[in-house]
């Protein structure tokens, strides 16, 4: 059962956001995932990000495919329209939904099975269309619901709970996204709430396709010794490259670090994403350089995290399609009907 209603408990003096909503107003049903599952931490980070951005829940869309991660759309924002769609096909559904109304902040939830095997094609095409959405790839290297088979993100040589080591190289979502054309590419870890919340906020505010590859360990099937997606392994090889903070249009940019280490990227809404480079040599606005750095970190077994690439200048799908600002689903029929006279006139060529 994935849909236990969770009672809303309000506390005294609970902090409220600009809309007067508390964090609990962004919560959803009870999670039915395993205790300690990384995905629950990701869900909590999503709740926090939407709350802090003061997005009205009913004005957001949450869409997922199939799998443990995809179940989590039910665990946050009960006041949003949600859709748990078909395995590997969340991107097409989300793209269609956004085409009908581009005013709704959209978060897509997927996993490594949903995204990197059955859904690799759809994910790639959402990236190249630069669909204005945040795509969360909750990555644990295994199929949880079918009890522990390797997924396409399992590293070569990683050990399963039982049986032989993984024989095939992993598909790295970050390298993939860099090559296909996503315009906001990040990696994080379910155990790093602070970084994750910042990235989700920045990703939601980015105009275009944002992907966050979140290492989100599976406690039941992939958290043992020899697994490269376990909590222990992730903590050991965790490395932060670029921290990103979303700065609202009303806020001032405060540079707390030496010049060269802090870089503001202006957003379409007038706000900024402030990048704090923990690795001074890293340039997250250079796709080629980012790719080299990501490849280099893989050779070193380093799990490189943070906002690894951003390009705010590419047109998103709505712009490429030259669509009106007004959502398609709000255009009255009177403006869509060309009328009887037009129909008669255009048939001259058929006589």
């Amino acid at each position: 059962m994935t849909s236990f209603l969770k009672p809303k408990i309000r506390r005294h003096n609970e902090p409220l956001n600009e809309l007067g909503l508390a964090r609990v107003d962004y919560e959803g049903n009870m999670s039915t995932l395993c205790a300690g599952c990384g995905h629950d931490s990701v869900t909590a980070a999503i709740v926090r990000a939407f709350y802090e951005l003061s997005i009205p829940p009913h004005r957001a869309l949450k869409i997922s495919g199939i799998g443990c991660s995809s179940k989590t759309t039910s665990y946050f924002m009960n006041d949003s329209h949600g859709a748990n769609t078909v395995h590997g096909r969340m991107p097409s559904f989300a793209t269609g939904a956004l085409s009908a109304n581009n005013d709704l902040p959209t978060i897509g939830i997927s996993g490594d099975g949903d995204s990197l095997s059955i859904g690799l094609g759809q994910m790639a095409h959402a990236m190249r269309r630069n669909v204005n959405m945040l795509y969360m790839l909750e990555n644990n290297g295994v199929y949880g619901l079918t009890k522990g088979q390797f997924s396409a993100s399992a590293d070569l040589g990683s050990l399963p709970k039982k049986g032989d080591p993984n024989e095939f190289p992993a598909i790295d979502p970050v390298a993939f996204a860099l090559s296909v054309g996503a315009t906001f590419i990040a990696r994080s870890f379910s155990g790093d709430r602070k970084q994750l919340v910042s990235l989700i906020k920045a990703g939601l505010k980015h105009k275009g396709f944002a992907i966050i590859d979140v290492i989100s360990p599976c406690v039941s099937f992939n958290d043992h010794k020899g697994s490269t997606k376990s909590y222990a392994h992730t903590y050991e090889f965790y490395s932060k490259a670029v921290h990103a903070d979303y700065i609202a249009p009303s806020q001032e940019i405060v540079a707390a670090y030496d010049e060269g280490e802090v870089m503001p990227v202006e957003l379409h809404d007038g706000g900024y994403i402030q990048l704090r480079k923990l690795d001074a040599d890293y340039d997250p606005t250079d796709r080629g350089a980012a790719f080299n750095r990501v490849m280099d970190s893989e050779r070193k077994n380093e799990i490189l995290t943070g906002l690894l690439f951003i390009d705010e200048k590419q047109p998103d799908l709505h712009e490429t399609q030259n669509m009106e600002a007004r959502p398609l689903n709000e255009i009255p029929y009177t403006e869509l009907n060309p009328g009887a006279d037009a129909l008669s006139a255009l048939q001259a060529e058929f006589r």
Partner: protein
Amino acid sequence: MSGPGLNDFVIKIGTVNGTGSASANGLLMKSIFRMGIPVVGKNVFPSNIQGLPTWYEIRVSGDGHAGRSGEVHMMVAMNQATYDQDLAELATGGVLLYDSTWPRPQLENRPDVTVIGVPLMKMCNEVVKAARSRILMKNMAYVGAVAALVDIDLAVIRSLIEETFAAKAKLIDSNMVAVKLGYDYVKSHYDCPLRFRVAALDKTKGKVMIDGNTAASLGCVYAGATFGAWYPITPSTSLMDGFVKYCKKLRVHEESGKNKFCIIQAEDELAAAGLIIGAAWNGARAFTPTSGPGISLMSEWIGFAYYTEIPVVFFDIQRTGPSTGMPTRTQQCDIQTTAYASHGDTKHIVLYPSDPNECFDFAVRSFDLAERFQTPVFFLSDIDLGMNDWMVDELTWDDNYVPDRGKVVTKDDLDKMESFSRYLDVDGDHIPYRSLPGTDPKGAYFLRGSGHNAHARYTELGHEYQEIVDRLLAKWESAKTAVPAPIVQKAAGSTRYGMIAIGTSDAAATEARTRLEADGMPVDYMRVRAFPFTDEVEAFIADHEEVFVVEQNRDAQLLNLLLTETNAAREKLIPVLHYSGEPLNYRFVCDALMKRIKLRKIA
């Protein structure tokens, strides 16, 4: 049986694809149409870009028959590779026109036909310099030769050429020169016109020559569809081409230059289905054109949309299956697939248009039905209807039309409600209310293809699950009264025989019925126009002792659907099946019916 005679004959032109003959053939057909004579054009082309055989069949029918006749009276044999085949197909007493630039020794095979040689290439080579132009001009030269033989008005041909090349005046004269080459040569070497020829009539006023895909695309525009997604597949591609063309013409904001539509070429059919379902969930009228292979790929999504009650329209322009089949040849082979597409218990609304006018009308009705019943609707056409030009009444539009958007709750509605349940049958009509994202927190619900109850919550409880699927069935059954009713044509007297046809089988079936009745074999006729079948369908079968079911597939798909979905007795239904890939002709239907009827008379 038919002709040949005055305004009653068939010309077939055999050429090689990629040589530009399509415009020449279209010109021939349209000239006849402009002379006020009803005409039918069938393009039989290969799944290839250049170099394989292609045919164009023009049936001149002063009586206005819309299907194929099944005979060829004049063969314009321009393709050496199919020469024997083309010669063999010609009816006794027919005329074969060939390019006598090259000798054709095998002409001796048919002493029962007249052979007319015209040195088309030779004449063109003498007056045209560029090699590519020579080939195009040779096409125009055979147009001239045919015009001389069957008496097509040269002034009509000229006016059509002038319209075509209005922007390139230079080409008007050069094309007319080529037409005249063929025309004059035939006039001076042969007795013209032939025994079968055209003579101006007044039967095409208020008519247009239009293909079904173009008409359907206009239907999408007029229905107010704003979102289309597709993966290119023959023979559905021209439907989206039409939608793109008319949206650019009619749907761009005058001042801002911005589009009031969104069209996405998907990466595959699976994505196309996902795209339209997402858009429809969010309140846009959305559709995808595809063909049988696309429906196979989309099936998973189709079940999702059915179960989650999302209104979308699938245009299936059928082609010959199974698998890749013959992609450019026609069949009615997706009748069963579309009726029950996807795994699990699924039943769909399917519309079966039979001419372009109905394509326009049914396209609009598809969106209304989809939104009223909150379910996928299938528009089942085929390549014959979709890609051939048909003569139909000019399309008309009622400016008072208001789209039936179905039960969509507004913010005001939600404000008045205690609570909102997406799948609750509030009105007892099996159709729940739906809310669009972004309207109001109270309208929020969670869409899922997994088991859900009336409140859109996950369930694995048998009774909750059954409540929804039972309602879906009742909802589908209630669509019987909303879909287009069948059209029945009764014979003058009473008859024990009935005939049922569907879609493009109609033209041949109608003609067969008319001719059989004239020969003293009356048959009542019903054309089925939608699934679920209305009560008239069952009544029609009940009213007759024997019912011929005419369709274009091997497995008698319509017949079997009738058996499954009505109380019809199996022994009553007699399959009449045509599935060669060529459009059905009336002779085939007549032969099948006569055989059975005569057999019974003898017995």
